[in-house]
């Protein structure tokens, strides 16, 4: 059962959509329900020892999991397709913006910022296509971003925050360093962001 669980998790992770415990129970574990916690424990260990991946529960109420890379970063290229690289580039930029702006921003602000980078929500982008869809649907579904509607707004407005996957996969320290690198400044230039980044593990 353990190897089946491992395989199931690896395949499900392809789309980067969190895996539901219910799916796991229904499709793989089935009759071994009682041994669930033991199976999960062993599967986690396999994932860690063989693949260097960590199984993380991001929603303890709805019991959803993601796989996070647990290996220390090695200098060199991360192997993935160009499309994935570009999406991650856009995501990181947005996450940086959100963090530097106090962890919660209005969607209008995000779009205004992106426009400065020649990315327009209403227009097809040569790299990203339907950007609005990518940002508000795909990245949200993958739990990288979290959108919350602001009550009593017309037309409806939203706030953007880091999603649970972003919290697990990305550190604020690295984000600040990224911004500092791009702007050619020292991370301590932004004092409060710096102290917050230091405080977060």
């Amino acid at each position, binding site marked *: 059962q353990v190897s089946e669980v491992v395989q199931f998790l690896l395949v499900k992770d392809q789309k980067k959509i969190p895996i539901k415990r219910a799916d796991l129970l229904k499709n793989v574990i089935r009759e071994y329900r009682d041994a669930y916690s033991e199976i999960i424990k062993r599967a986690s260990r396999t994932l860690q020892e063989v693949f260097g991946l960590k199984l993380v529960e991001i929603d303890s109420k709805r019991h959803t999991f993601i796989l996070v*890379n647990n290996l220390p970063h090695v200098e060199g290229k991360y192997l993935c397709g160009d499309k994935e690289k570009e999406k991650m*580039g856009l995501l990181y930029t947005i996450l940086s913006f959100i963090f530097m702006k106090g962890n919660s921003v209005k969607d209008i602000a995000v779009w205004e910022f992106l426009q400065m980078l020649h990315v327009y929500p209403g227009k097809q982008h040569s790299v990203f296509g339907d950007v609005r869809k990518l940002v508000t649907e795909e990245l949200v579904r993958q739990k990288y971003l979290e959108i919350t509607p602001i009550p009593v707004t017309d037309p409806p407005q939203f706030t953007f925050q880091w999603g649970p996957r972003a919290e697990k996969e990305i550190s604020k320290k690295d984000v600040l360093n990224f911004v500092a690198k791009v702007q050619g400044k020292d991370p301590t230039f932004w004092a409060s962001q710096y102290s917050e980044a230091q405080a977060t593990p």
Partner: protein
Amino acid sequence: ENREAMLSSKNNRLTEALEEANTLFDGVCRAREAALDAQFLVIASSIGKEKANELRSEMSAFDSAAFAEDLLTFMGINRMEETDDSEDGPGGFLPRDAWKKVGEEALKYIKRAPTFHYMLGSFKSEPPVPKQRIERQKKANRGKAERAMPAQLKKMEESYQEATEKEVERVLGILQTHFENDPNTPISFFDFVIDPNSFARTVENMFHVSFLIRDGLARIKLDEDELPVIEPTKPSAGGEEEIRTGARNQVIIKLDQQEWK
């Protein structure tokens, strides 16, 4: 519309706008205008709230415009004159790999699990189409094979049948020959069928004789001693009747090895 601009802590635009509204309100005499004024107040207060929020927020001021500019530089923007390409914003056009560059830098810090893909792919799309063809061919082949089979069987059966028929004819021939030599004297049934050397052959003989009886080509009667005798039937006018009569009588003869001996 100018919300963002008003929010900027660097100016007093909000205050200016409020003052302007105040002045305007003096000239208001219609309800519609009053309503507009009310709307403006709602928006103004919400902006005011946000500004207050920003003051409260402990984040050091972050100049997103400056960050954007620097990012563009990082991406390798070409700051020439505006091209005709409508996608490019003011300030130049971005190279093809602009976002890839950012992505590569970003991926250094994102603990993303590499996606797992089977090297050889899954068994999908292709097989179904040829499969159909193969199935059809198989069916065709099987049809032929089946046809070949029955043909073979038929042959076997025929030969089997032929063998039996031949045997029967042979037996009939022997019977008739006997009778020619000794007309009007039926032969003892047992003398006729029993093979002193082989029990199996005896049974076979009886088997063949039974065919003759069935077809009405021979007849078994009981003689004075109550022993069965056999004689070939003469093709007579009443032949059919006899056949029918013969068919109605059934005799079961039991012979086992001990008796035979």
